[in-house]
């Protein structure tokens, strides 16, 4: 009887210990994942910050109301970039951030920047990792619109195919000899890819394609994340 109790006690202890270690491991994994995503979190380019500050400095005297809007938009963007990493937000929130971002860039670039939005409304709520679309638009502006004296149009299309969210961004490109292969561009893309793969495994995909005079970025991810509720 005593022996049986002892054995049961030891076994129970082992099982408890097992679950305890498991739990610790899970917490640790989560923390590592969190810090990995944190490290990958999109960063606002310093150029953008200083250009925006310059816009504000210029508008304060001539158009204080617009200056105020820029301060509000800029704050929202920074708040988002400081937000807890790996956050998934309703897709409308990300689109709203993008609109604010575009509003600032439009002040800087004037009528050189044109946008076409083709956004399908989801039937059920859909989430997207925070600041996934915005850096892609930033790339499109920095490499597609800014180097062109006459500017151009960025087209954004968002559709739902079965359970997959599909976003396509098309921007013009300068003539082949004038293109700058940019380290920053590649890094931004790599960054988003890594974040997507942490969240969705191989069910997400980010591809780019150079056509004759345009650059197409295609982002696909499932409506539902594979894991991770943080």
């Amino acid at each position, binding site marked *: 009887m005593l022996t049986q109790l002892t054995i049961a006690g030891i076994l129970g202890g082992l099982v408890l210990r097992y679950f305890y270690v498991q739990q610790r491991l899970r917490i640790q994994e989560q923390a590592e994942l969190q810090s990995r995503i944190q490290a990958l979190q999109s960063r606002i380019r*310093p*150029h953008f910050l*200083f*250009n925006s*500050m*310059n*816009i*504000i*400095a*210029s*508008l304060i*005297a*001539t158009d204080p109301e617009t200056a105020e809007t820029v301060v509000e938009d800029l704050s929202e963007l920074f708040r988002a970039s400081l937000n807890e990493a790996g956050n998934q937000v309703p897709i409308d929130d990300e689109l709203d951030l993008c609109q604010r971002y575009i509003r600032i860039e439009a*002040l*800087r*670039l*004037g009528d050189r920047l044109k946008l076409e939005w083709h956004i399908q409304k989801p039937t059920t709520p859909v989430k997207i990792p925070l600041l996934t679309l915005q850096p892609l638009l930033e790339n499109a502006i920095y490499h597609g619109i*800014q*180097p*062109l*004296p006459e500017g151009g149009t960025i087209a954004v299309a968002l559709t739902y195919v079965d359970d997959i969210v599909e976003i396509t961004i098309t921007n013009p490109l300068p*003539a082949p*000899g*004038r293109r*700058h292969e940019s380290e920053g561009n590649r890094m931004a893309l790599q960054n988003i890819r890594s974040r997507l793969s942490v969240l969705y495994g191989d069910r997400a995909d980010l591809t780019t394609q150079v056509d004759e005079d345009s650059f197409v970025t295609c982002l696909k991810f499932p409506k539902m994340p594979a894991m991770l509720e943080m």
Partner: protein
Amino acid sequence: MRILIVDDESLARDRLRRMLQHEQDHEVLGEATNGMEAVRLSAELQPDLVLLDIRMPGMDGLETARHFLTLDEPRGVIFCTAYEEHAIQAFDLQAVGYLLKPVRKKNLREALGKTGKLNRAQLAALNTVAEAGRSHISARTHKGIELIALEDVHYFQADQKYVTVRFGTGEVIIDDTLREPETEFGDLFVRVHRNALVAKHHIEGLDRMGGGQVRLHLRGLDQSIDVSRRHLPAVREIIRRL
């Protein structure tokens, strides 16, 4: 001082103009939105000083400054930029004016006070720090300043004293030897003769003349160009890859 403001962003130009409005010794002559416009306007308005944004589409600020120098347009230049550029760090910042946006009035005033003209040593510095070769060739002609897009250039040909640049609709003379464009645009051009440097992407084919003479046809050009025996293998190799 008479000043030209160059920036592709209108709000940035507005701000500089406003800051200079109340400066008694300074007058803004005009504004340009890119480097090419800046080179033309500068020749026309003859400013003492150019406030020059670095990042601009088409032709950037660094290239614009190089044209001022190669054209012997002795302009003072103050570079303006939103963010520290690596390129500019190679400069002697004491000698070249350099302002960070948003520009502070105090810094602008100081820079205006001490900025002199770019000198030859700084041109050399500009040439080494510029990320790529120039996008344009500049020349002074009877029509004024001409800027020729590099992709339009068919060939450079050296005479005894000068170099002729042949392009789509005409030709200009520049104050260089063939060695300069050859070093700067080496990837895009090929030496076909002691006296000729040809744009690779305009090359169409070879013509064999009598007496072992070989001449090169260029797209969109009636006249053909002598290829010397020494340079023939290199030219053949390029044609093979077309």
